[in-house]
């Protein structure tokens, strides 16, 4: 590279480069439910080799629209909000709650479901060259075209890792974890023309330091999750948002 900087770690691997793009938080919304949905249950994700679990077995949470067990709420975007192609949507809820998402991409209206009536939604976008925030402190890095590629005063989303099987969030104090689900992965469809069911994927947020991946499934009492749907395609990443950014 001719301009900017590169930072190497102790193994000689580039840890950061001014050519990298980072995600900055542009908005944080608190959004509330608009509907309670019919019976659903959520499974922990399984390995493909495992057999199905029946209704009510361990690692299954159950919600019903009549309030038996617990409610499951539908939550949408805030009024007037339009998802644009370069936006990343992260969601979180009270620790101990579960949250699911599907269709989080710009050509569809995303749906979120949670056992919490109110969730928090963060909007992140890659920092663009014209994001020339003023600052008297910190570090500004420029790319080869002379545009600002990184600014340490930006409301940078600290991406702490992808949503994988470890269930651990590397989260220092003062940050709230948000889950940025892969929109496509959040939407799984049974390959059966008569039963095109949609299966939001999500997590149970156990605490600021851990989560459990979940798959939401309609709660017919005899349903067993099809084998090909058990494997967690739920990709996505976890972003830490500085709690001082909350309104």
């Amino acid at each position, binding site marked *: 590279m001719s301009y900017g900087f590169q*930072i*190497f*770690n*102790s*193994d000689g*691997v*580039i*840890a*950061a*480069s001014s*050519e*990298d*793009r*980072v*995600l900055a938080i542009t908005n944080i919304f608190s959004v509330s439910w608009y509907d309670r949905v019919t019976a659903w249950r959520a499974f922990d994700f399984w390995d493909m080799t495992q057999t199905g679990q029946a209704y009510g077995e361990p690692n299954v949470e159950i919600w019903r629209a009549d309030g038996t067990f617990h409610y499951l709420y539908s939550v949408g975007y805030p009024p007037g909000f339009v998802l644009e*192609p370069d936006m990343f949507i992260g969601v979180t809820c009270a620790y101990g709650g579960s949250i699911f998402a599907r*269709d989080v*991409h*710009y*050509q569809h209206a995303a749906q979120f479901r949670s056992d919490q009536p109110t969730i928090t939604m963060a909007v992140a976008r*890659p920092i663009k060259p014209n994001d020339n925030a003023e*600052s*008297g*402190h*910190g*570090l500004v890095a420029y790319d080869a075209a002379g545009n600002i590629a*990184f600014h*340490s*005063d930006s409301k*940078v989303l*600290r*991406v*702490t*890792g*992808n949503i*994988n099987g470890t269930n651990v969030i590397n989260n220092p104090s003062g940050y709230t974890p948000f889950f*940025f689900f*892969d*929109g*496509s*992965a959040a*939407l799984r*469809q049974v*390959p059966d023309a008569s039963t095109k069911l949609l299966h939001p994927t999500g997590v149970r947020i156990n605490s600021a330091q851990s989560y459990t991946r979940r798959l939401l499934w309609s709660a017919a009492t005899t349903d067993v999750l099809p084998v*090909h749907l058990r494997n967690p*395609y739920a*990709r*996505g*990443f976890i972003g830490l948002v500085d709690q001082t950014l909350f309104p």
Partner: protein
Amino acid sequence: MSYGVQVMTSTGQMSSDTLNTYGIVKILHCQTETGSATIPEFNSDVGFWHLVIGDSVFEQAVAWNNTTKSFVWIRDAAFGGRVHSSNFYVYFFRGVSA
């Protein structure tokens, strides 16, 4: 800290590995149902990728070979002959430690 840089910011001194934990090192726009691409700057030992579909409910099956630095996307066999996305993005994030 032994490596990297520390920067005084308006919220105090921060080290480079906390300023930016995972940066986007590559944005790959895939416009076919199947295909492959080489991403030499990506290392899955420390980074990860994130897929964003723009035109379809059916996601691809994807695979990454960290030796050949090859990213491959194919139809998901579970969905047979159904139409898969031919307009999706893959964001490659660079990690901070090996």
